[in-house]
């Protein structure tokens, strides 16, 4: 039993994803708790803006890791706070490099950046990439409660997107001045207004090689995403659990997710069918019998659609999931199902 259990907990990263409301956070928490009980140090990361992690454990969990119980820590990412921190740090950096008369302009420009729609998602992704690397290295296991398709797929393409932009602009600096030199040699004139010597001529900058430091910063950030991508694509490091409910929308959404992940060569480790009417439930009334029948239809569909993945069934509970004891029983259920797969 212990050997097969190691299988799931042998991964360093587990992503638990699915449509909103299917029970991702509960399953993620249950798994984290089970791992903690096995003796693995585990960090639970919530990327859900609604942050039900704190509600489930009945604790206040902040942006810094908070101890939940033995071997188990929790963390709630706040994308807006991350974004603000990033932009503030960029502002500080920039102000060291330009003339003070540009300070106001910098503040304006960068504040605009923080209001743009992609900013908080970008901040979230960067934090996730952090936790996949150095940020999560202190733990045996990091469990992310997150939407699997959107974020992860974007993470995969980030190194290229960044590269195209930075190379396009920074490398261009060298190319442009070489082109200029060639042009001069050929007798052509560079027109007035082409003079970007403020950038090329680094002696006129208050500090040393601006472009050099800039390049370092950007390459370091890009490397972080490359490391994250490599881990995502490594099935021995990262496991993906897809959570769904036995209903139509859940099924359709999950199909799309699997298609997307497969296209990017990310393997789904298991499909968790959550909130299934328990076998021993009293289903005398016609209402509940009808619900059960519909459920059975969807369960059969799930079995055929996701036949290539192990399926873990977790029952609907009588009460809300709150507190460690309930999580414990769910965790046990998940583990037993995982063993029986």
């Amino acid at each position, binding site marked *: 039993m212990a050997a097969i259990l190691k299988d799931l907990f042998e991964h360093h990263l587990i992503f638990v994803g699915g449509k909103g409301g299917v029970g991702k956070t509960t399953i993620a928490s249950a798994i984290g708790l089970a791992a903690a009980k096995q003796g693995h140090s585990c960090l639970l990361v919530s990327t859900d803006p609604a942050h039900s992690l704190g509600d489930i454990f009945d604790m206040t969990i902040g942006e810094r890791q908070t101890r939940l119980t033995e071997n188990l820590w929790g963390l709630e990412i706040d994308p807006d706070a991350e974004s603000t921190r990033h932009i503030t740090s960029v502002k500080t950096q*920039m102000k060291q490099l330009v003339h003070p008369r540009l300070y106001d302009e910098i503040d304006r420009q960068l504040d605009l950046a923080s209001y743009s*729609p992609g900013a908080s998602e970008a901040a979230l992704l960067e934090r996730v990439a952090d936790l996949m690397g150095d940020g999560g290295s202190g733990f045996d296991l990091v469990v992310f409660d997150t939407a699997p398709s959107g974020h992860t797929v974007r993470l995969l393409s980030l190194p290229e997107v960044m590269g195209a932009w930075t190379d396009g602009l920074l490398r261009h600096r060298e*190319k442009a001045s070489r082109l200029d030199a060639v042009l001069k040699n050929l007798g052509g004139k560079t027109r007035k207004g082409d003079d970007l010597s403020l950038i090329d001529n680094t002696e006129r900058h208050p500090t040393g090689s601006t472009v050099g430091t800039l390049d370092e910063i950007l390459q370091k950030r890009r490397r972080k995403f490359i490391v994250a991508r490599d881990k995502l694509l490594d099935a021995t490091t990262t496991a993906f659990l897809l959570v769904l409910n036995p209903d139509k929308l859940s099924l359709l959404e999950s199909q799309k997710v699997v298609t997307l992940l497969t296209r990017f060569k990310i393997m789904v480790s298991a499909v968790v069918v959550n909130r299934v009417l328990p076998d021993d439930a009293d289903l005398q009334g016609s209402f509940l019998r009808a619900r059960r029948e519909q459920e059975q239809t969807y369960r059969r569909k799930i079995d055929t659609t996701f036949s290539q993945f192990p399926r873990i069934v977790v029952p609907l509970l009588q009460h809300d999931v709150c507190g460690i004891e309930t999580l414990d029983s769910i965790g046990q259920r998940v583990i037993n199902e995982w063993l029986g797969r």
Partner: protein
Amino acid sequence: MASRQRRSWWKHFQLLLSEFYQAPYRGAIARAKRDEDDLFMLFVFAELMGVPNPATYYTLEMQPLLLERFHAWHKRMGMEHSPLDHFRCC
């Protein structure tokens, strides 16, 4: 006298010869430079027109470079001041 005439004729000839060899390449190089600039302009304008560029957030440190380049561009296009309201470089 004849020698000086010969020298000036020779210099003129050299100039013409240089032009003959180099002129065809000047256009290509200038075009290559323009293409680089166009790529940059595409990104900047796309950003300002609301086409999201996922790299922007991670490359905010490059903003001063963008400002300088944009300034050089509008000057080159003959515009005294920045044509865009929210990109005030001058």
